[in-house]
């Protein structure tokens, strides 16, 4: 079957080939040289399923475009130099001060270039949106199981994008060379020096000598405007190509199966909606840049290595390792004439690496445990994968507690608590919190699954209370519409991984059996207590029962208890209802 032509549509008109026109001549010219038609015939009417959550990735994509545009504007005036200069610009408070050219040119952009401040603020706001957009998009992909085969590689690309985006944000944040960002660079130098054996060498190579030197800003600039954006661009292109190749996942529903994709065509509906959304994201960043001040570097002053502002905080996406840094005990080992500073190494070098590796491996860990090798194009509701959902919530809890620990000084001031007790609390919470979150989430998911099954079998609660002949009360349940019933049951049964046979014909243990047994028990832990959807027979039996009940209730429909039994002014002796015990 051809995959590019719509084989089924709920529309009434077939799409017609375009009539030749003036534009046709241009098209002919281009196609004769580029052969565009072949690619276009496949993709112009490509189907994209619709759901609000599919927009989250677009936020990230479009804010990246805004970053490219505004960033390019900034490069026209920004000077990546640590050379000393005396400021004589429009901002009076800093007039006559010595500062780096980087800082003075950023002041210049903010105060003397028209629309410069707007572009700076838009650039920074777009960076926030970019990173936040990627994070929320990642959560959407994870919680709905969209990372499963065949999309694992796109998950990996997405994780790399998040990592690079974060680094890009850090390098950009450092460029203005104000007191706050300079303090950040100095801390980064401390992080690097904590690496065993190579730390001091990397630090000296990076800074061109001792901190601060005069090379770090120009080098970060190259990384910020050339190296990382180039790699990001390539990865985003690959991300999009794979998306088109795999076709978008979709939610199950009537007519939407694992073998097809239902939605609107690329041209015109999706193009208009996605294109329109670009302008929305762009517009929102412009409004943010126009009305909300961000990173007012003129308030911090130029960088001075012997000063620091109280309450120094990195940008929010750097907050969680900063929090780990704060709650880590001050462990340091000295032996054989060398030093290892665990207090810095663990929270800032090792933990981010570990977290990133876990994130990257999630699809592979899950598919190994479950032994699932099938292609999946239908999304799952988070409740239908309780362990997976709980795992991410546990990771988010870890992230959240670490992040909060990064604001321990602010929390202490706002809530009048001692920094010490907050720190001790966080040291425990960072371990216990994720475990508790895991347990609660898993149970919650399972009870939601149970509720779904109840609804399927006994119908949904109508809120109508019925009184039967013997005085008992029941709530009236009505069966779900068939389409909803189908949607709720359009999911796979969980299959616990089974070892094929522990020993081969000769009774010898097959190689890898140990591993297989681990896998089998992990798999049964993974699916334990999950509720499976009812079978057709069970559904039919339940509906049959419901029909009986409806017949039984029929004479009562239209009557209701008048409520006078409870108002205290009417005797209730002999009233069945008041004494009714179940």
């Amino acid at each position: 079957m051809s995959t590019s032509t719509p084989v089924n549509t709920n529309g009434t008109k077939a799409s017609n080939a375009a009539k030749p026109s003036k534009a046709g001549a241009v098209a002919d010219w281009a196609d004769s040289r580029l052969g565009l038609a072949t690619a276009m015939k496949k993709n112009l009417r490509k189907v994209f399923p619709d759901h609000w959550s599919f927009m989250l990735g677009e936020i990230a994509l479009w804010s990246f475009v805004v970053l490219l545009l505004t960033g390019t504007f900034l490069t026209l005036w920004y000077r990546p130099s640590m050379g000393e200069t005396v400021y004589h610009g429009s901002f009076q408070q800093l007039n006559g001060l010595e500062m780096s050219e980087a800082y003075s040119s950023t002041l210049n952009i903010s105060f003397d270039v028209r629309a410069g401040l707007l572009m700076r603020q838009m650039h920074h706001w777009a960076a926030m949106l970019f990173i936040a957009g990627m994070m929320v998009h990642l959560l959407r992909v994870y919680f709905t199981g969209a990372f499963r085969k065949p999309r694992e590689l796109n998950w990996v690309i997405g994780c790399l994008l998040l990592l690079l985006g974060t680094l890009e944000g850090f390098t950009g944040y450092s460029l203005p060379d104000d007191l706050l960002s300079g303090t950040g660079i100095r801390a980064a130098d401390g992080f690097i020096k904590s690496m065993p054996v190579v730390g001091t060498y990397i630090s000296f190579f990076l800074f061109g000598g001792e901190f601060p030197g005069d090379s770090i800003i120009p080098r970060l600039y190259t990384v910020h405007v050339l190296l990382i954006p180039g790699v990001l661009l390539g990865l985003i292109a690959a991300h999009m190509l794979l998306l088109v190749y795999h076709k978008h996942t979709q939610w199950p529903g009537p007519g939407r199966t694992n073998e097809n994709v239902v939605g609107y065509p690329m041209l015109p509906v999706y193009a208009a909606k996605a294109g329109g959304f670009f302008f929305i994201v762009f517009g929102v960043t412009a409004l943010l840049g126009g009305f909300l001040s961000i990173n007012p570097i003129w308030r911090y002053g130029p960088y001075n290595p012997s000063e620091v502002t109280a309450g120094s905080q990195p940008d929010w996406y750097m907050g969680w390792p900063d929090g780990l840094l704060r709650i880590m005990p001050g462990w340091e080992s000295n032996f054989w004439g060398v030093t290892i500073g665990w207090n810095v190494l663990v929270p800032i070098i090792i933990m981010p690496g570990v977290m990133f590796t876990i994130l990257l491996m999630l699809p592979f860990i899950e598919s190994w445990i479950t032994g699932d090798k099938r292609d999946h194009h239908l999304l799952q509701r988070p409740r239908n994968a309780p362990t997976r959902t709980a795992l991410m919530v546990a990771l988010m809890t870890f992230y959240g507690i670490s992040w909060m620990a990064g604001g321990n000084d602010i929390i202490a001031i706002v809530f009048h608590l001692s920094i010490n007790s907050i720190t001790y609390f966080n040291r425990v919470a960072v371990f216990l919190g994720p475990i508790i979150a895991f347990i609660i989430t898993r149970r919650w998911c399972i009870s939601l699954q149970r509720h779904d099954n109840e609804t399927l079998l006994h119908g949904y609660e109508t809120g109508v209370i019925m009184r039967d002949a013997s005085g008992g009360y029941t709530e009236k349940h009505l069966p779900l519409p068939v389409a909803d019933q189908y949607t709720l049951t359009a999911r796979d049964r969980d299959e616990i991984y089974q070892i094929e046979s522990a020993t081969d014909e000769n009774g010898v243990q097959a190689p890898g059996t140990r591993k297989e047994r681990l896998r089998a028990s992990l798999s049964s832990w993974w699916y334990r207590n999950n509720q499976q959807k009812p079978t057709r027979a069970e559904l039919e039996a339940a509906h049959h029962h419901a029909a009986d009940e409806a017949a039984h209730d029929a004479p009562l429909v239209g009557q209701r208890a008048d409520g006078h039994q409870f108002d205290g002014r009417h005797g209730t002796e002999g009233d069945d209802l008041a004494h009714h015990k179940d």
Partner: protein
Amino acid sequence: MSIDHEQRTGSELVAAEPDPVPDPGMEEHLPRPTDVDPIAERRAERQVATLFGLSVLFTLGFCVAYFAIKIKGRTDPPHIFGWGASNVALGGCLGIALLLIGTGAILWARKLMGDHEIMEMRHPARSSDEDREEALSALSLGTEESGIARRPLIRNSMLAAMGALGLPAIVALRDLGPLPGKKLFHTVWTEDMPIVQDVTGTKIKASDMQVGQLVNAEPGVFYDAFTPPGGGTTVEVPEGVTAQEDRAKAAIVVVRMDPDAITPAKGRADWGVNGILVFSKICTHVGCPISLWEQQTHHLLCPCHQSTFDLADNGKVIFGPAGHALPQLPIKVDEDGYLVAQSDFTEPVGPSFWERG
């Protein structure tokens, strides 16, 4: 109700179980008001065009604001609600112009463009078996013709040649920076170097310091060339990069405490002057300059991650993530009673590193 967990393989399930509820198929397409009512259709058309038209106005507004609103000469540039007028006007106009285009396009798509959902079959991401076979045979034919498998000598020498190219890629980066050497172990402090207030550069007289006072200070060589009183080579005032690097390591705090409160470690009894002690200002955690002094408790708190050091107890860490005490600078007074250093720090200042030992 509970449904027992069933352990069956996928193929069995497919064979054994029909969908619990049969697929009712795609919903019927319901026409929108704009599909059936020409008036609604024309109204929608006007709405979309109005949005696009308004956008042009706001774009022009941006241009007008660009030229009309003055930003230079900070004496008194115009403000709106305390905001720079130019920024608000430019951002507001641009933002609204863009949002109008966005909403126009989406409205157009929703109300007027065909809204028939279409269905497409998926194909597996994998290539077909024939394609795989063809690809493999093309690959082996190519490999065969190149003879790379049959001629290990060529293969290995080529791999060696290409692998060796990795070296220049690394070697060429050598000049990124000098080797660390012993640089991290030294600062500009030397014997008899005056201790001066930072910013003003004035010398500090021991008798002028109050108990409980903290002064941020620097080596005097940042202000005047320094010649050791006993004679010797003059150290010039550092300039440019060197000045920044020296400043980053040499910053100190001078504190005066009640001498009875101080418990000097072994060998440090004569490192202070009448309860005046000097410590590095650079946090031993990751290197923030420390600034918060609680004179009652003699605690110095780092604003970055709240490491707290007890200056009455040799700069020991009493709370927070720092791994070792703040280095102390041994001091004395010169013949006029001004504070000077006895020597450089006896250990590296700032965060720890592998070679620190």
